[in-house]
C-alpha cells in the first residue's frame, strides 16, 4: 500500500508537510462534523437511548436471534460454496470438452446463470419450490426459502467458477497441454491431470473471495422471508421497536466475517504466489484486486 502510493509523490518537504498537516486537520474536522450531525439527529429521535441498544445486544438477542440467524446464513452459504464448486467443475470441464455441441450448450447454461440476477433466480425458485415441489412431499414447504437461497447461490456462483476454471486453463502456457499430449494423454486426461489442478491452485484465493460474495448474497434471502441473520435481526427489531439498532449489529457481524475472509484470501494469494513465484511473472503487488483482475483476463 505505502510503496504503491509512494510512486505518485516525492517525499514531502517542509512546505508540503505543512499542507499535509492542514489537510489532515481538515479531514479530521470533516469526519467529526459528520459524526456529530449523525449522533445529534439520532439523539433527537431517541435512537441513542440505552434501552434501544441493550435490547439489541443482550443475551436474549444473541441467543434467540443473531446466533440462530448467523447459523443459517453460514450454513446456507457454506453449502452453496460446496455445491457451486461442483457445478463449476462440471461446467468448467464441459466448456473445455472436445465436442462443439457440448461446449456450446454448456456455454449457454453458464452465460444464462451469470446474466440473471441472483434475486430474480431466488424469487422464481421460491415460488417454484413452494408451489410445485413442496406439494409432492420432496421438501417441506417451510424450507422452500432455504433451498431457494442455496440453489440460487449455487447456480450463479457455480457459473462464475466455471468461467474462472475455463479462463484459468486458457491462461496456462500451451506447453503444458502439448507436453501432456506428448506423454500420450487424451485431451480429457490432460485437462483432468495436468491443466485443471494448476488452474485450481491459482484460483484458490478467488474462490475464497467468492465465499465473501456468497455470504453477502445470502442476505438476499431476506426478501423471500428466509430466516437468516438479516431476517432474525428484523424480527428482533420488530419485537422491541429498535430495528435501526438490530440492523446495525447485523451489518457489523457481516463486515467482521467478510473482512477476516478477505484478509485470509489476500494472505493465501501471497502464500501461493511465493510458492510458484519462479514460474509466474514476479508479483509486484499481491492486493486482492490485482489478483482478481488478472484472473478475469
Amino acid at each position, binding site marked *: 500500500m505505502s510503496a504503491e502510493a509512494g510512486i505518485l509523490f516525492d517525499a514531502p518537504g517542509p512546505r508540503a508537510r505543512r499542507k499535509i498537516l492542514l489537510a489532515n486537520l481538515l479531514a479530521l474536522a470533516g469526519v467529526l462534523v459528520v459524526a456529530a450531525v449523525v449522533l445529534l439527529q439520532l439523539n433527537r429521535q431517541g435512537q441513542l437511548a440505552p434501552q434501544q441498544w441493550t435490547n439489541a445486544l443482550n443475551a436474549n438477542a444473541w441467543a434467540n436471534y443473531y446466533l440462530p440467524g448467523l447459523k443459517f446464513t453460514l450454513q446456507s452459504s457454506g453449502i452453496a460454496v460446496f455445491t457451486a464448486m461442483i457445478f463449476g467443475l462440471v461446467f468448467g470441464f464441459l466448456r473445455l470438452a472436445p465436442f462443439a455441441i457440448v461446449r456450446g450448450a454448456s456455454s449457454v447454461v453458464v452465460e444464462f446463470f451469470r446474466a440473471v440476477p441472483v434475486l430474480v433466480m431466488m424469487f422464481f425458485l421460491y415460488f417454484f419450490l413452494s408451489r410445485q415441489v413442496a406439494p409432492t412431499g420432496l421438501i417441506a414447504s417451510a424450507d422452500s426459502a432455504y433451498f431457494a437461497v442455496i440453489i440460487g447461490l449455487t447456480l450463479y456462483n457455480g457459473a462464475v467458477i466455471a468461467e474462472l476454471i475455463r479462463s484459468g486453463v486458457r491462461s496456462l502456457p500451451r506447453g503444458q497441454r502439448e507436453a501432456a499430449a506428448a506423454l500420450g494423454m487424451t485431451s480429457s486426461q490432460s485437462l*483432468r491431470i495436468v491443466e485443471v489442478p494448476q488452474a485450481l491452485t491459482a484460483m484458490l484465493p478467488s474462490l475464497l473471495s467468492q465465499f465473501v460474495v456468497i455470504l453477502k448474497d445470502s442476505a438476499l434471502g431476506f426478501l423471500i422471508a428466509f430466516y437468516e441473520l438479516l431476517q432474525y435481526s428484523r424480527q428482533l427489531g420488530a419485537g422491541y421497536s429498535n430495528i435501526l439498532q438490530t440492523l446495525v449489529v447485523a451489518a457489523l457481524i457481516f463486515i467482521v466475517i467478510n473482512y477476516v475472509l478477505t484478509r485470509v484470501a489476500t494472505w493465501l494469494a501471497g502464500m501461493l504466489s511465493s510458492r510458484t513465484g519462479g514460474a509466474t511473472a514476479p508479483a509486484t503487488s499481491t492486493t486482492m484486486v490485482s489478483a482478481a483482475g488478472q484472473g478475469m483476463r
Partner: protein
Amino acid sequence: MRTKLASAAAVAAASVLIMSACAPSQTGGDEGGEAEGGGDTVRIGIKYDQPGLGFREGDGDPTGFDVEVAKYVAEELGYTEDQIEWVQTPSANRENALEGGEVDMIFATYSITDERDERVDFAGPYFVAGQDLLVRADDTEITGPDALDGKNLCSVTGSTSAQKIKEEYAQGVELVEQGGYAECVTYLESGQVDAVTTDDIILAGLAATPENAEKFMVVGNAFSVERYGVGIPTGSEMCEDINAAITQMKEDGAWQEALDTATEGTGYTPDEELNNGPEAELESCDD
C-alpha cells in the same frame, strides 16, 4: 472422467442429504421434530413475529391471543401444553404447510376467504377483525380512511389493504410498502408516515408492546370484515371439536381474558357487533 463424474455425483448426493438434514424445518422446532411420531403431539402453526397475536423468541414460550386460543382448543382436544409442537407459519406458507401435512392446525391471523377455502378447510372463526388504522396517540385528525387524503400511509408488501384505501377512500394518499409492520410502526413513531393499516387486532398487538406503550392508538373505525379461522387440512375430522372448543372458550370468559391481555393499554376494543353478529357464526364442517 467416468470415475470423476461418479464421485462428483456421490458428493452431490451427499450434499443434498446434508442440505435436507440441516434444513430449518428439521432444526428449528423443539423436541426433535417429527421423529417421535405424530400420535402423541399436535403440531400447531402460529406466527412468530406478530406481537400480541403470535410472538416467540427462539425456543421460548410463545405468547399472544392466537397462541392462547390455540392452547385452549388443544386442551379441549385432549392435548396438554407439553404435547403442543409449535411451528412457524408465515402468511405465504400457510396453505402449503397444511397441504404438505406439516401442521395439524393453524392459528395465525388466518382470514377465511373463498380462494383459500379451495385448498384448505376452516374451523371457527374464533375472532372477527376488521381493517383499521393505527395513528399516533395525539392525532385527532385521522378518524377513518376518508381522512387520509394528502397523508402518508404504510402497509406491508403484497398486502391488498393499502391498495384498497387508495382505490376506495382516499386517492390522494401516499403509500409506502415495507417488509413488515414493525417497520411501519417505526415510521409512524418518527412521523414519516401518519397511519399504518391492516387488521385492527394486529395493530392493537403492535401498539401494546412495552416499547410502544401509550404511543399509538387504533382509530376504531373498522371498514372491512376479516374472519380469523383455524386452518385445518381438507377433510380433517377435528373441525367439529374445534368449533365446540371455541364456543366454550367464548362462554367461559377465557376468550375475553386472553383478548384483554393481548391488547392492554391501546384503547382498543374488538367490534362487539361483528364478534357477536352473523360474521362470527361458525363455519359449517360438512363440505
